[in-house]
């Protein structure tokens, strides 16, 4: 009995740990250099090719139901001729304190040991809550059975999203999502899995730069970098200016701003004041006339 109580107390201590994981096995993160990003959209198509995201057609696009997991947001400030155009690729930032995770009643989304915010498609019942709670609007929903739906209606033609033989392109490592489930960027978890598999065969840890999600891989300007934040020597840790272990600890434990921690003054996180602790670090764009907003001291 005493043993049981002891066990329960011990459990209690562990289970009361915020975030639960003291340290992720790997902490996958991305750095996006906005000064390099040109907004060319290669990442968008690469993602679509890798992750079996269906094409939805003109009508559905008009309703904002396109399924791209990454999008380029473009903001225009000012009027002719003083126009400032800014681009930012937005994809699921795999928040450490992800608001979507708490919303799901059936655990279809949760945080895994790699620091990823994971969506389990076949557990999803489609309550939409995660997408509503998501401040970044990166969650995408399967409104139809896209491999049955003709999206060219009204244009004379007929085609489903995976019209044969287009379906032969589908990546077998990624499931084709059923109607009624939510989906989102996974940081190309199938590639992470493959890399882990390889590393396990060779009995070594995953090397820095070994995994490149489709968007990172294709980026012509190399604006996107992916890697393990746990490894202070990794390229992204260097780029984000988080190259000491203390930084990481501080980042995980406190809700403070990245600008207080990072040694790179260009590092920031999107909508940081919402305290969702996203793990995508943007590097500020260098731009004449400064930002239109008070983004810096």
């Amino acid at each position: 009995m005493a043993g049981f109580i002891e066990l329960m107390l011990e459990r209690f201590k562990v289970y009361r740990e915020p975030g639960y994981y003291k340290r992720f096995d790997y902490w996958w993160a991305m750095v996006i250099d906005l000064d390099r990003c040109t907004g060319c959209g290669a990442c968008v198509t690469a993602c679509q090719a890798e992750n079996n995201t269906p094409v939805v057609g003109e009508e559905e696009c008009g309703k904002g139901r396109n399924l791209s997991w990454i999008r380029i947001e473009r903001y225009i400030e000012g009027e002719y001729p003083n126009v400032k155009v800014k681009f930012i690729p937005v994809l699921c930032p795999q928040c450490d304190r992800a608001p979507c995770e708490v919303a799901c009643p059936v655990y279809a989304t949760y945080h895994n040991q790699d620091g990823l915010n994971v969506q389990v498609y076949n557990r999803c019942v489609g309550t939409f809550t995660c997408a509503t709670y998501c401040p970044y609007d990166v969650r995408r929903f399967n409104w139809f059975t896209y491999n049955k739906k003709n999206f060219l209606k009204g244009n004379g033609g007929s085609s489903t999203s995976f019209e044969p033989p287009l379906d032969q392109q589908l990546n077998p490592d990624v499931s084709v999502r059923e109607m009624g489930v939510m989906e989102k960027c996974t940081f190309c978890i199938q590639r992470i899995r493959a890399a882990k598999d390889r590393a396990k065969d060779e009995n070594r840890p995953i090397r820095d730069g070994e995994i490149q999600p489709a968007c990172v891989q294709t980026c012509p300007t190399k604006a996107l970098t992916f890697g393990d934040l746990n490894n202070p020597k990794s390229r992204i840790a260097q780029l984000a200016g988080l190259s000491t272990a203390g930084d990481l600890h501080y980042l995980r434990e406190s809700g403070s701003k990245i600008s207080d921690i990072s040694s790179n003054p260009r590092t920031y996180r999107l909508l940081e004041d919402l305290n969702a602790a996203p793990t995508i670090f943007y590097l500020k764009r260098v731009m004449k006339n400064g930002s239109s907003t008070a983004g810096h001291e």
Partner: protein
Amino acid sequence: MLNRRDFLKLVGVGGAGAAAGFALGELTKTPPAKLIPYLIPPEDVIPGIANWYASACMQCSAGCGILVRVMEGRAKKIEGNPLHPINKGGLCARGQAGLQLLYNPDRIKNPLKRNGKRGKGEFEEITWEEGLSILTNNLMELRSHGEADRLYLLTSLIRGHLNFLLADFMKAYGSPNYLQYDLFQYENLRFANKIIVGQYTIPHYDIANTNFLLSFGADFVTTWISPVNYNYGYGQMRQGEGRNVRGKLVQIEPRLSLTGANADEWVPVRPGTEGVLALGIAYIILEGGYYRGGDAKLWKDALKKYNPEAVASTTEVSEDRIKQLGKEFATTKPSLAIGGETVSSYENGVSNLVAINLLNHLSGNIGKTGGVIPNPDVIKKSFNPIATIAKDASRRKIKTLILHNANPVFTTPETLKLKDALKDIPFIASLSSLHDETTALADLILPSHTYFEDWGDDFAEPTVGYSVATIMQPAVSPLFNTKGAGDVFISLAKTLGGNLQKDITWEDFGVFLRDSWKKIYERHKGDIKEANFEDFWNDLLARGGWWDAVPKASKPVRVAASEVSAHLSSEPAKFEGNDKEYPFYLILYPHLSYKDGRGANLPWLQELPDPMTSVVWGTWIEMNSKAATGMGIKEGDMLLVESPFGKITAPVYFYPGQRPDTISIPLGQGHTSYGRYADGRGANPIELLPAKTDPKTGAIPLNSTRIKITRVNAPKSFVKMEGVAKELGRNIVQTITPEEFKKMGKEA
């Protein structure tokens, strides 16, 4: 309670119900999946494990190297080849979407013979034997009548050994008319380079290492020449490893392109006066004494009328701005000036480009790292041939036309009357994978492989200062009953006999390619060093190409002021239509995803939001909202755009990055016969253009007319993905100023 009879009835009902349920269960069972083993296992295939094959991207003429992920014989993904010097692992959206070309449901699956009136699109399926014999018979007949020179071959840009094969074929057959066509062939640029750099090629613009990039309408981020390479360069220029200065980009163009959006400064110059502005800058360079050459005096004389006051009034760019640009361009080293498609597409395109190139000469950027690096010579390509074809066809000079992947009908203005001219050709055969507008006019269609199914190679042009060849290998087995173009010509040569049989002796194109590469191997150059050809070949296939990373030392070119000034025109470009009736300049530009229209049949590209407007699945008209005031136009309204030569209807998008006197329309949509995803979508603004080609280069000037607009009531087709494009102080895209950035570098 329950008597016997009722009981029996109940039992009966129950039994029947159960049996029916059981039967339904049996019927609704999914049939078991099948496991199909290999008959003989392919050597290097493990089911469930991907193989990567190196190949070349053929979505545009940049010549990027790709890796194709193949699982169980089917291509699953394309990625940039990280070893390849052109794209360095990157790939643009069009390259990514190549898979949808391979798996396009609208690919031609069998050889087809015309079965009705030409152009009606009625075809019947035939076998390859029949198809080839029709073509052979036609060619035999032509030759026997002594009209071999009346065979014309029109292909897309082909630069690899297929080009040699086709040239050999045509030569042996006896026809000089082997033509290549692409709307964006950059002939003007080559011409201008001949004058300043001394080579009829496109040089390598070393964006990666430049510190000041002055771009005159060069949208190198999206489509211009070699976008992936330039994008890589751009990334390096801004935040490259080991750079201590962040390169600056100034974009001079009337419509803010994606490149302009990324620039530090945008100079919205009056359309057609970019050349004048360049000369104005040249004037400042000379006046400021930044030119180190001995012939400064001559240059000064030649350019004396381009003083800032005069230039400012022509270009509508302030004097101070011109002076500041000139000074900055001359003093920042290295600097680089490039002239892009917008500039080249005026009626005076060549002179604009010469003027821009002159800047590079005057500030000594040619042959320098971070400047203009001359490329190795390449085989001279044919003159842009569309006017020739139109002329020769209407003169009934062409008896037989063989097309290969070229689609001039879509990319030339109606006013050139190419479509009518083609009708005068007695026999047209098309070797194409897709049923495009030109193929629709053919009598015989022989479907060709896509670049995933065929052998081939590609010599990138421009390259990066040294020779780069990319190899293509059949990554997947052919999906449909198609043949590679090379194979078709080889088998034609065999059946035609004569010279052809003597010159073309290979059994198929793969063997031809291998034999040809033996010659390259025997020169023992390049990065692949192997003891025998077998290993060389294997390395080549594994690596995806061959390159010789040692740049050739360039010879200095003598540029004489008098010679150059002959090519300069002080006048702004002329536009068709008077400015009273047609108040707007028209700027046509290649769309990021479709370029000249070739990508419009790929749904991924259709659904890729245009970065500047976020429009998908259609054409739009970009217009400054200031210009629309008083016209009662709201965003999304359908506008009728009229030039003196044609009219189109498209929805309007209010775009602040647009001069109020200018309207821009992207190319690429408005297909009539290009598969289900492209047909009947948007409008083709090429229809607005006059029947004009550049007399020096044959290029079609895209920006050569003025237009007027009227609002019309037409069914709307306008889908944009953006909600509100204002940040509203939310700190979404945060920025720091260059000054802060500089300070930051010192601290770190």
